[in-house]
């Protein structure tokens, strides 16, 4: 079968199931030369599965794939690479102890003996051609996120790929880095590459793509020209119903300085200073948003505030009481109720293999006086949560890991809120959740805020941070670049502060 040469990829009626989950159902998808395609959909819509099929990681159950007019049956990634397809994974596939050069040439055929100098030179040339700057001898674990992404892109270009797939490439980048990436993508497009970008960020779709395909629950909802659609139309296609995109920010009565952090410093196990003199106050009845590039000290701050991380110096006061150096149990027994919604829900937040009841008991079993545990009160609590939060589960005795991401988060949030917290610390509370579930989370937090709870909200989506928070604190390399009023800044400004290009003086913090 021959078709016009501009048609680079044609996928026809692709089906793929994992166990009982229908990840892809009769999906057809086309990619043409010199155009950028956005694949849009919520988490679990099947975008990544479809692209993993194209890159040979998964084998489809049925359907046909044509690349450059030839039918292909990929059973391994190497066959897909040979056909000119290059995938840039969301979770970078780099080997940490290897250098940039070694990572780039990995899996490629060539001389048995490696000539490192010649290879480095070749990679320098390639980087110059597309306007990247790179140190070929840097090891992957010393690289920043955006450097790692550069290596991933060069890896694909080095193999001579003309069909590029980028899986959520901007999730970990600052707005400035994103802009640079988009420039590179446009350059590649001009050189005749076909590009697919997987994303769930609407503004990026509108900015970069020529065409957009919307997926929902494993099926394609439609493919439209980007210039002929609007973000609202795309959202409705994505979710399947009309939703409001705006996040509500209720006013609440503030109790100033409930939580006060002074000169907090934290070193990690390797002795690196991860938090460097952190100073801030958190008021009751407010949501303080925390923005920052991944690895700026968010994890250490969360864990320092909850008593999980030993402090190098500094103090943490709750209503005037020093709680620095106390363990989580001691904090709780001293009458301060801190709720922590960690980033790793199923690792740190809940015990994945236990059911709702046992997970609830874990939070307060030590308050029971008897030797044997009373399960009944926790069972009742679990059932109340199921009804009030509308948790989709076959029953309270179902292992929590078997629930969907949104429901898992509802269990965790519900349990924590049921403890009547004074302070809530949430890290990436909506990561991996779809639009609907995310809004439930925002509503729950807002409700707590109006009750006077002090909330620290670590977020990665700047749009959400700007809408939800009462104030935003920006972290950069373990320091605070400033605390700002979301009504007076835009994403651009936050981006500069996240990258450390701009810092506010203490007097200018709100």
């Amino acid at each position, binding site marked *: 079968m021959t078709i016009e040469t501009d048609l680079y990829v044609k996928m026809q009626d692709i089906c793929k199931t994992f166990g009982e989950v229908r990840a892809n159902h009769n999906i057809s998808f086309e990619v043409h030369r010199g155009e950028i395609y956005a694949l849009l959909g919520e988490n679990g819509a099947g975008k990544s599965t479809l692209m993993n099929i194209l890159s040979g990681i998964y084998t489809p159950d049925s359907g046909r794939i044509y690349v450059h007019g030839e039918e292909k049956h990929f059973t391994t990634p190497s066959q897909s690479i040979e056909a000119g397809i290059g995938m840039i994974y969301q979770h970078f596939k780099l*080997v940490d102890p290897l250098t940039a050069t070694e990572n780039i040439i990995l899996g490629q055929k060539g001389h048995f003996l490696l000539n490192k100098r010649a290879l480095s030179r070749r990679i320098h040339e390639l980087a110059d051609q597309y306007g990247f700057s790179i140190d070929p001898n840097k090891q992957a674990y010393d690289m920043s996120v955006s450097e790692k992404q550069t290596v991933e892109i060069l890896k694909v270009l080095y193999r001579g790929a003309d069909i590029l797939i980028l899986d959520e490439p901007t999730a970990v980048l600052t707005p400035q880095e994103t802009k640079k990436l988009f420039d590179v993508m446009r350059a590649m497009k001009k050189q005749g590459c076909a590009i697919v970008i997987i994303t769930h960020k609407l503004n990026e779709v509108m900015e970069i793509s020529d065409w957009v395909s919307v997926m929902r629950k494993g099926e394609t909802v439609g493919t439209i020209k980007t210039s002929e659609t609007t973000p609202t139309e795309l959202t409705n296609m994505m979710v399947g119903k009309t939703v409001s995109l705006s996040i509500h920010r209720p006013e609440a009565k503030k109790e100033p300085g409930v939580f006060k952090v002074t000169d907090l410093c934290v070193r990690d196990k390797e002795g690196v200073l991860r938090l460097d003199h952190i100073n801030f106050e958190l008021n009751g009845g407010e949501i303080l948003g925390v923005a920052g590039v991944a690895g700026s000290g968010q994890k250490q701050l969360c864990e320092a505030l909850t008593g999980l991380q030993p402090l190098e110096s500094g103090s943490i006061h709750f209503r005037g009481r020093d709680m620095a150096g106390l363990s989580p149990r001691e904090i709780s027994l001293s009458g301060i109720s801190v709720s922590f919604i960690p980033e790793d829900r199923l690792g740190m937040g809940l015990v994945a293999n236990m059911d709702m009841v046992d997970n609830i008991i874990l939070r307060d079993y030590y308050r029971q006086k008897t030797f044997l545990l009373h399960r009944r009160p926790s069972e009742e609590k679990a059932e109340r949560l199921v009804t009030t939060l509308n948790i989709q589960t076959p029953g309270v005795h179902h292992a929590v890991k078997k629930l969907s991401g949104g429901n898992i988060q509802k269990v965790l949030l519900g349990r924590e809120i049921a403890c009547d917290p004074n302070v809530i610390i949430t890290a990436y509370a909506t990561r991996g959740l779809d639009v609907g579930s995310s809004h439930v989370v925002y509503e729950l937090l807002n409700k707590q805020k109006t009750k006077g709870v002090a909330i620290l909200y670590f977020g990665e989506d700047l749009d959400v941070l700007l809408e939800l928070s009462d104030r935003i604190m920006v972290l950069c390399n373990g320091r605070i670049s400033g605390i700002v009023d979301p009504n007076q800044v835009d994403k651009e400004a936050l981006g500069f502060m996240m990258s450390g290009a701009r810092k506010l003086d203490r007097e200018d913090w709100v």
Partner: protein
Amino acid sequence: MLSDFLVAAIVAGTPLLFAVLGEIFAERSGKLNLGLEGMMLMGAVVGFQVGLSTSQVGLALLSAMIAGGAGALIFAVLTITLRSNQVVTGLALTMFGMGFSSFVGKNLVGEALPETIKLFFQPYPIPFLCNIPFLGPILFARDPLVYGGYAAVIIGSLYLYRTRCGLHLRAVGENTAAADAAGIRVTLYQYVHVVLGGILCGLGGAYLSLVDVPAWQDNITAGRGWIAIALVIFCKWNPWVVFLGAYLFGGLDIIGFRLQRFDIPISQYIIDMLPYLVTILILVISSVRKSRGSAGPAEMGHPYFREEK
């Protein structure tokens, strides 16, 4: 005196050298094979038996390597294809090797090796190199398998760090999913290097029964397979360091025997414990001083399944 001791250390260290090098290859592919002791015993008993009945050195060594490789192949099928637990499978392989060698070796106790084999393993001084003062006669007037050990370490190191296949092997052990996505044939690499590890272990075992001892005795390895596993950590998975590690422990192995004539007021048994005590010491030091790269290949011990969600 000292040179005698060093010569004996090199001879005693050679079985360790082969086993450690073999295990480095297996672990670099992400497979932790604890069956070293078993594979060495299989190589030792098969090599001795074949040497005894054929008087052919080549055949004896070849069959020892096949025996070790076969043991590793069992491990590879179980852990790579069937994704069974590597620790338990390795322990089972050790027990299998011990039983197998005791069974086959029953009639070998007290048998003397043919003269042809003993002749083959006499020292061959290398011209010029053996004239180096002091070190020359120690390092370069040895039997052919000691030279084989030198060659194995040098070739193994160059292979791991200077060739494309070596790069791919390191990638498989450090991040299997990334290696797979880069189009490297992960399963093939794992099979080849696990089996290569077994082959080298078999050879190490044969050196023990044919040259070092040289006779058959039950459980001839006496824990050398376990020491080799600890030595891999000592060497930080770097084949170059195997020279140091293997000969150092070879020295510790024989030091008790050598010290006997000096009438030292320490019990013989305490001195015989030395290699094992130092092994424990090394493990303690290496886990206290946890620096980057000393933790071993990141994927070691984990099964890999491409379509895992």
